[in-house]
């Protein structure tokens, strides 16, 4: 499997480590009324789709950047690769 790194170009997936669902970027607000429930869901509950899935990959043997990879879990086809920091900032994080 080849991951097309947005900065470095196509790299073998053996250079990366897998973290899982990219929803981990959306950390709940600890001050919310429902924080206990929110963090329970954030930490433990995951969808496990057979099909397209946005997931976090770490380029450990490369530039050590975090990526959001949109991958089809049935075919391993990859449709989109983005820098995780760009995704996070797009969601209003890191301000």
């Amino acid at each position, binding site marked *: 499997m080849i991951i097309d790194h947005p*900065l470095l170009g196509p790299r073998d997936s053996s250079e990366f480590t897998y973290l899982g669902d990219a929803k981990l970027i959306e950390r709940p607000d600890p001050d919310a009324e429902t924080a206990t429930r929110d963090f329970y869901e954030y930490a433990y509950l995951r969808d496990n789709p057979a099909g397209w899935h946005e997931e976090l990959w770490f380029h450990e*043997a*490369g*530039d050590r950047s975090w990526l959001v990879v949109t991958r089809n879990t049935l075919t391993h086809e990859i449709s989109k690769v983005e820098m995780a920091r760009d995704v996070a900032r797009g969601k209003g994080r890191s301000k």
Partner: protein
Amino acid sequence: MHDLQTITALGGATPRVDVFNHITITENDGVALASVAARLGREAACRKVLKKLLGAVPETGRAVLHDPEAGFCMGPDQWMLGAPRVSHELIADQLKTLFGDNASVTEQSGAWVCFDITGAAMRDMCERLCAVPIRQMVAGDVRRTVIHQLGCFVIRRTADDHVRIFGPRASAATLHHALMTAAASIA
């Protein structure tokens, strides 16, 4: 006053040099390093200081082989800067004065060991060590890769048969063992 003798990463009083017919592996004890990471919202100001210091900002996968300070890109808004140790032993302090609040500067001299590999068989040796496209790389190209399970930087230097490897200093002997094994395997 204490009279202390510095030792190299491999533990010697002088840097180790291993000479084969086709390759020379030199422990390079003379590089001082510091990393520079632009702070959030200060990226443009940080690049401005870098440009003034090096003449150009190192782009992704590239080094600027400037004298005395040189630098290469480690990732988005992150760079490693190096300079001769004799003149820049306190490089992190010197850089912090220049960058101020625009960047976080961390001293890295104690974290890395530097090996210079030169010789006709440099490319053959590099291919046995790691998965970088060494034959396509030109002077100033930098890749972070894994050698012998160690995260390393591989830098193609100006001379056509010269590659520089930065690896974790605490594993200097392990990395050296890997280099020696690769050199012997292509003899």
